[in-house]
């Protein structure tokens, strides 16, 4: 049998196809680029008493779901390409398409540089021209997927490709080497209306702890006419244990005052503690019930 093996020669291998998985892995995917805040779904009802869903948690979930909705639009397009075989392969590149989209052709390409860098882009072309509307750079870690990098969604370019009145861009910096770490920046995103969406969001989930930071506004007088206060929220949680949200409110109805507002919840996501520095809300519960003892301001935005 050894002798027979010596007379066998050839180059049969599925290695080139198996490596497709590495090239595809540089594309963003749901588990690595979306925000997973406790609660999963929004709940209506009272939110100011012990046993209610804490308002800051609800707000954090609302913000996360909104950010996710923007990212899901991108992932949907990426997944269309992920599900088809490359149309061209070299040792350091893969190309997909052209795939019909928006009345034109969608193509995608991943180029590998060195051992770990992958530059990739999605391009739309039609009679009006061609433009990259999704680009990214990924650096492989222990595996290709477990790496870090950034991608940019050019909402204006995509609108040109698809004939829509859109603008702005979304930038995601991510680090998936030890968990999920995202910095999401929405810059003047608009879709078919003058309203634009600006925002910055920092999300991290690693070592079984979550941390979500963002800026939002709040109408303390709740009259719909006053200036809105700026709210910097930092939400931290431990799955199946509980969490704590700390907010710093400034401006608006508050004038020069600053309010530090804290809410904590247990594993059932109901409020176990509440306190604010101006007494604007009712003090509730025992601070010892908080899984995090100290107030923590945002530090990544």
């Amino acid at each position, binding site marked *: *049998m050894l002798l*027979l*093996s010596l*007379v*066998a*020669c*050839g*180059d*049969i*291998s*599925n*290695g*080139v*196809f*198996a490596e*497709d*998985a590495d090239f*595809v892995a540089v594309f963003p995917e749901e588990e690595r680029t979306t925000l997973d805040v406790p609660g999963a779904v929004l709940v209506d009802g009272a939110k100011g008493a012990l046993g209610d869903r804490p308002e800051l948690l609800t707000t954090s979930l609302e913000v996360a779901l909104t950010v996710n909705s923007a990212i899901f639009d991108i992932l949907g397009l990426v997944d269309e390409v*992920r*599900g*088809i*075989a*490359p*149309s*061209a*392969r*070299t040792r350091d590149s893969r*190309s997909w398409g052209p795939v019909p989209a928006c009345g034109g052709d969608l193509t995608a390409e991943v180029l590998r540089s060195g051992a770990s860098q992958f530059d990739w882009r999605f391009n739309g072309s039609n009679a009006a021209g061609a433009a990259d509307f999704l680009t990214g750079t990924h650096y492989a870690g222990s595996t290709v997927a477990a790496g870090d990098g950034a991608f940019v969604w050019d909402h204006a370019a995509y609108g040109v490709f698809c004939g829509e009145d859109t603008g702005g861009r979304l930038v995601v910096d991510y680090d998936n080497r030890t968990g999920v770490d995202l910095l999401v920046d929405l810059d003047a995103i608009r879709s078919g209306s003058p309203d634009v969406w600006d925002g910055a969001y920092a999300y991290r989930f690693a070592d079984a702890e979550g941390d979500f930071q963002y800026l939002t506004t709040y109408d303390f007088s709740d009259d719909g006419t006053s200036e809105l206060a700026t709210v910097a929220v930092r939400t931290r949680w431990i799955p199946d244990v509980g969490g704590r949200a700390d907010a710093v409110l400034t401006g608006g109805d508050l004038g020069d005052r600053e309010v530090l507002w804290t809410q904590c919840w247990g594993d059932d996501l109901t409020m176990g503690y509440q306190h604010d520095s101006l007494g604007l809300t009712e003090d509730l519960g025992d601070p010892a019930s908080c899984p995090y003892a100290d107030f923590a301001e945002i530090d990544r935005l």
Partner: protein
Amino acid sequence: MLLALLLSLPASAAIQRWAVLVGNNEGGAGATPLYFAELDARKMQRILTDQGGISDPDVRLLLGRGRNDLLFTMGALREPIAAARARGDQTVVYFYYSGHADDTQLQLGRTGVTWAELETLLEKSGADVRVAFVDACQSGTITRTKGGTLAPSFVFDVSERLDSSGTVIITSSTGDEASQESDAIGGSYFTHFLASALTGAADENRDGQVTLSETYQYVYHKTVFETAGTRTGTQHPTYEWKLSGTGDLVMTELDRAGSTILFPATNPGTFAVFDQDHKLFVAEVEVTDTDRRLALRPGRYLVQRRFPTWLAVARISVPVYGSLTVDSDDFVRAEYEDDVAKGDIDRVIQQARLPRLSARVLTGGRGFADAAVQTAYFPSTPVAGVETRFNWRTGQWVAVDFLAGSGTGTLAVDELPYGIPTRVSSAAVGLEAGYATRQAPLRAGAGLRLEGFYLVRTFPDQGVASQSVTTIAPGLVAWAGWYPGRFELELQLRTHYLPYVVDDRDQGMAFNELLLGLGWRF
């Protein structure tokens, strides 16, 4: 007291019989294959087991076998014979040979056993009486008889007890004569009359027993008479008789078979009996002034009486444990061209005359045995090709073949959500050899093969260069089919080991080919 008396009596000695029956259609280099030698051996097996008092396990039938098989078989008889003699039984060994021979040896295919060796083998068997019938050209060499010898004037008493010991050799011809087969009787003349004799035609004294002396005298006279007019010339059976003591050896007993047919003297003539179930003539009997009885197995028979331009044919069914009388009323007139027996014999001849070389076209599929390999690397593909095979009549065969094929499929690679479209094409040259069952309308064979194997994968629209492997794959092949004549319809199954490691996968690299073949002997 009575019991003690019985126990003190010596046990009565029984006669234990064994038979070694050898048939080989093949001779040495240049010998024209015989048609009926192996059939003749089968015919003798039936008679000796039905009427000769030999149980099936004590009959060794060697068809198409060589020297080593014969030496082994004869050697294996020594132990049971010695055991029987130790018990006080008297022992008889029959040896029958039908095949080619020359003045030095029996030709067992390409091997041989010399006449001297045969005598020694008989002697060394240890049996009290050794009786050999040798139906072969120049078989008289063993009896050192150069001319025709009339049958001895036997004067032994016929008795139930064998009081003789020694060797009797009866040959089909002298040392310088050819022994002949006849298409008309579907066998050799000598064995035809030997079988007839043992079936009852030689029972001259009508006592229901056919003795060795009766057998020889019948076979001698009938063989000489029937071969006198043949182109090859008269064939004279000979004998060598080295028996001491008295008594004749009873070869067959008609009542032992249980079923007999009776030819009454009221319908004289010469009748040939053809076994329709086994497609062979089993006996020929001449009826003159007294009734004649033949012992037959139950079954369907044709009884023929031949006239110059027509046949008288009786279709009979021999009952189990019964006697059937064949009267003149049972016969109907038939034309020679409607002779069923001749048709059956012709088919035997046709099979024997089939050329040894066959060629066939093959079509089927090739696939890997391991489903995972098939899914990830090599989808099954259709293949087609040609094969030529050389068939020795002894059952060995060699073949070479060429197969090529191409097919498309989709590869499923781990962790990829899409399939990889591929086309797999292959070409292979195979060399194989093995053994097959005897030539017959339904046959099967098996053997080893080596396949020079080239396979290439291409990936349309994938931007990937083609990949190939070239290797030699060892394997096994089995085939079975229908071979009514020159035409062949065959199913082949081949399995190979691919000695090539793909992506560190060292298991499951076996591939199979299932093929349908349409062939022709030429």
